[in-house]
């Protein structure tokens, strides 16, 4: 009985305790870790990944998986640069086009999965390849920046509008001047919105039902296909938001950026399973998962761990989180049967 209680406690709070322990340790061990600037830096480093991760969480909730989010983000990055630099459009048009592109990709993903019955991993893998290729075609594989030579020999005259760059670079004042960057604010807003949608509305409830037993949800009158498509559209739109923020931060359409986005976002989503013993995809867990990775990397960096150990650390965290989720939770349920 005592053991059972302890186990339940470990499953529920183990990961959060680990997080607090980690923060305490780094605060003591690495000077300068504890402080608003450092905290904001961590948030900023995970904001874009976190937004993508919240999107992929929605697809995980309906029992799917979206592998195309990384390439949607980089496509949005390239598209926004192309809109402003080559087509000389305003920031508003660029942002609108990117969001539309994300929604469209999500819709196509959803239709492939729901109507064409392509398994989710394969459909979104195909979409990922397609987008990685597509985003390079208009510029013949080159990055986009003001003054670049276009395929037809002319020079690109457009510039990234200040309003667009504001999205990636502006910092709001909070206690300290110029403290909180726009992407962090957006990350928090998106996190709250996705959480509210998944946890408090009946639509979220039905999406969880689909993820748990699709047939049963359908037989209870849920429009399974519509919710699945919705989940992929949310994922696509949020991925394009991530791409816009990345473009605004970089100020150019960099072809090589965003390589790690997919894996980092998926890792955050999966680490989220372990938070509060949820054992299922959830928005709060995803946000914590993203932060966890950010804190760990920032702490290690400040303690002079070399940059090439980063992926190893992320992988280790993910494996530990998955053990938390699956091994311990199945023990709690008594297992066996």
């Amino acid at each position, binding site marked *: 009985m005592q053991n059972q209680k302890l186990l339940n406690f470990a499953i529920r709070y183990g990961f959060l305790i680990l997080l607090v322990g980690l923060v305490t340790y780094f605060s003591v061990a690495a000077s300068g870790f504890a402080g608003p600037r450092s905290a904001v830096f961590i948030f900023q480093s995970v904001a874009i990944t976190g937004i993508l991760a919240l999107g992929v969480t929605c697809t995980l909730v309906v029992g799917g998986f979206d592998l195309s989010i990384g390439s949607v983000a980089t496509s949005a990055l390239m598209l926004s640069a192309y809109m402003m630099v080559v087509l000389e459009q305003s920031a508003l048009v660029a942002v609108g086009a990117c969001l539309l592109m994300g929604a469209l990709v999500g819709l196509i993903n959803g239709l492939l999965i729901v109507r064409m019955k392509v398994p989710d991993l394969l459909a979104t893998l195909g979409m990922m390849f397609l987008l990685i290729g597509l985003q390079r075609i208009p510029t013949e594989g080159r990055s986009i920046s003001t003054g670049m030579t276009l395929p037809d020999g002319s020079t690109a005259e457009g510039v990234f509008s200040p309003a667009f760059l504001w999205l990636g670079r502006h910092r709001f004042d909070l206690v300290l001047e110029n403290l909180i960057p726009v992407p962090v604010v957006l990350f928090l807003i998106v996190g709250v919105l996705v959480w509210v949608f998944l946890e*408090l509305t*009946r639509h979220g*409830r039905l999406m*969880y039902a689909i993820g748990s*037993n699709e*047939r049963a949800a359908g*037989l209870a009158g849920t429009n399974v296909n519509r919710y699945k498509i919705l989940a992929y559209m949310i994922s696509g739109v949020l991925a394009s938001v991530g791409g816009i923020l990345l473009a605004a931060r970089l100020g150019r359409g960099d072809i090589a950026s965003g390589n790690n986005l997919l894996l980092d976002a998926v890792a955050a989503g999966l680490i989220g399973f372990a938070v509060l013993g949820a054992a299922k995809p959830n928005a709060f867990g995803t946000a914590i998962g993203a932060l966890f990775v950010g804190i760990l990397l920032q702490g290690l960096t400040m303690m002079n761990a070399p940059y090439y150990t980063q992926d190893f650390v992320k992988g280790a965290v993910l494996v530990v989180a998955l053990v938390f989720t699956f091994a311990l939770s199945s023990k709690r349920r008594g297992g066996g049967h």
Partner: protein
Amino acid sequence: MNGAACTMVGIEKAFGPNRVLRGIDMVLWPGQVTVLMGANGAGKSTLVKLLCGVHQPDGGRIELFGRPYAPLTPAEAINAGVVTVHQSINDGVIPDLDVASNLMLDRLTDARSGFFVRGRALRAEAARIAGAMGLDLDVRATVGDLGVAERQLIAIARAMARDPKVLILDEPTSSLSATEAERLFALLDRLRDQGVAILYISHRMSDIRRIADRIISMRDGQISGTFEDAPLDYEGAVTAMLGHGLTQVDITIPVPGPEVLRLDGLCLSSGGQPIDLSLRRGEVVAVTGLLGSGKTALASILFGLMQATAGTVTLNGARFAPQSPGDAIRAGVFLCSKDRASNGVIPDFDITGNLTLPFTRRHARLSFLSGTSERAAARAMIEHLGIICQGPGDGIDTLSGGNQQKVMVGRWLAQTSQVLLLDEPFQGVDIRARRDIGNRIREGAAERATIVFAAELDEALEIADRIVVLNEEALVGEHRNENVDLNRMLAQVSGQEIATGQI
């Protein structure tokens, strides 16, 4: 006890607090077919699982030809000569492989059979086995493409290929037609003559009359009767199994209200027989028939999962042709699906979430769910149905089968329906929960029309005002539930009486 093939003494088995077997003593003799009868939840399947090594008994002992027998895995049981054909067909076959591989599966899993598969030899051997069984099949065909009956016969043929000494068949005819079943019986006759001890689990009277040398009845985890003197006392066996005779049901048939649902010439599949049926408010109609008789097809059409190939459905005087479950639910036609594990239960949700699933809108304002409203509704339903649990926040998988089924039924009682369809609502449910569910269904029946789809006659007799018999997608009989001629109804169910239209 000389010469007994298998002797069980004082077998006990419990799952958690649930004592499924309470001291079973049973002897199986070579060259004899012992029929084991028992209602749902009596413990038949658990007993089979002990014999075939899936579970281990908590107490008691089993002997096989005088030697102790305690299989820890199904493979050990098979090697000892105890071969089982399970009730669920898909346990017996692998749909993605061809017939030959399925028949020879045990040869393939045998470590001594070498690394490479020799296709030609495999197929030749498989064809021989199939031939001996009288199975006329292309051994290259993929099992997944075959019908249910053929799969069942393959599963049985596979059991035969192992040269069994004790053969256990768990409701093997539930998906077979009369001719196919007869083929199986002929085979069992031959095995009996060869001295195989056969344990045959069924509660289909026609099977039992045909094959039984001896009947053992089980009820609530105990042996409630053994019948071995010819002529066998079938009535006595049924009484021992149910605790009361088949005919002892206490139903007062109410005066039905206006017509709610009407089927005109409805064909369940192309070329099927047209079905006419009228259903009135306040009525509880049971639709009975074997697997494949069209019960599930009819439920699917009424719930918008399938379209009828011909004919019309009228609901309260208006044409009713739902395209999806959503359509049907909006029109007030609810279906509590059969096989709750795959079609009903949301394993990740608690009782509340499972209860409110179809009607979340009732508990939501501007799409935001109100936990208070949900929990209040759940508490009321738990109270109403007598669901045994700690509270509405319990996980659904902490409940017993009967209580899970109560949640599944309760889900559709939350809102008043025009027509309530319940497909096998007593599947995998103990006798008490079955009574509870039956009572609640009848209590609320006055405000709607109710159809219960049930393969088992005693379930139909227990719940319905009127019983409709389907056979091969045709309506072959209709009985008012008063002094029902059981033999006639059984004949209609098994297709031995030609359709005579309405009675």
